[in-house]
């Protein structure tokens, strides 16, 4: 590992630790109130820096990570209720509401849409890739 100092390196490290903490523990009931630790001048300052770096406040980012993971699991065909709880939401209604706001469709509609895409991929994979690559790789013969 190369270590070369740059301005406020310790603040960047704490910021990244907070982000990675959310990435790794999103499924648990985590407490974001203590995520800005004493390294920061103020909680407000920390949240502002987090937002300018990651586009979301820590709380919004946690919801974003949970919804992203939920989409992955729904794509894999897992049932809505088990996905909801396994990514850390505590109620099905708030999960569905937040999901719809982010994805534009309900979790069940999302599953249906991806099952359709998956079936289409299995049936005609070549419609998903540029023809020149398919031809060059010898996939057009089959």
């Amino acid at each position, binding site marked *: 590992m190369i270590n*070369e100092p740059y301005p406020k390196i310790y603040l960047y490290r704490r910021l*990244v630790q907070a982000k990675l903490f959310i990435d790794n523990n999103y499924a648990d009931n985590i407490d974001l109130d203590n995520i800005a630790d004493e390294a920061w001048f103020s909680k407000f300052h920390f949240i502002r820096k987090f937002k300018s770096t990651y586009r979301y406040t820590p709380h919004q980012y946690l919801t974003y990570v949970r919804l992203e993971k939920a989409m992955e699991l729904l794509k894999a065909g897992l049932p809505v209720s088990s996905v909801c709880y396994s990514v850390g939401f505590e109620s099905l209604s708030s999960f569905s509401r937040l999901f719809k706001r982010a994805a534009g469709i309900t979790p069940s509609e999302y599953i249906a849409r991806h099952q359709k895409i998956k079936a289409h991929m299995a049936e005609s*994979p070549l419609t998903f890739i540029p023809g020149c*690559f*398919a031809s060059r790789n010898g996939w057009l*013969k089959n």
Partner: protein
Amino acid sequence: MITKMTHVSIYVLDQGRAYDFYTNKLGFKVITDVPMPGGDRWLTVSPPEQPELELILSPVTRTIFSKESVKALTELIKDGAFGVGLFTSNDIFATYEELNAKGVVFTKVPKKEFYGTEAIFKDDSGNWFSLAQLN
């Protein structure tokens, strides 16, 4: 007139390992992941805020190359002969710290240059990329 670039190939030594590197370490999104005839896999990923540019993670072992070419390419990739491109970040120090914490290998730490602040990292195969926050 040519309007946009939508697909670019990156030759990787192991597609499964590259999938893990580009998604879990770099945080890229999978755009297309389709099994192809003959056991191949068409796999593309994109930087999180640029879904219209698909990086095709192509295994060097794909049969279009001769055995000799595969061997030569593998050596060149491992040796870091290919600098594939430049990724930008809105906060290079935070991105550097995160990737470093995830074990991504940097051959240059963020440094101020004429055009911005720049670092260089390698993917899991040996392809190198510039990471920059431009002025």
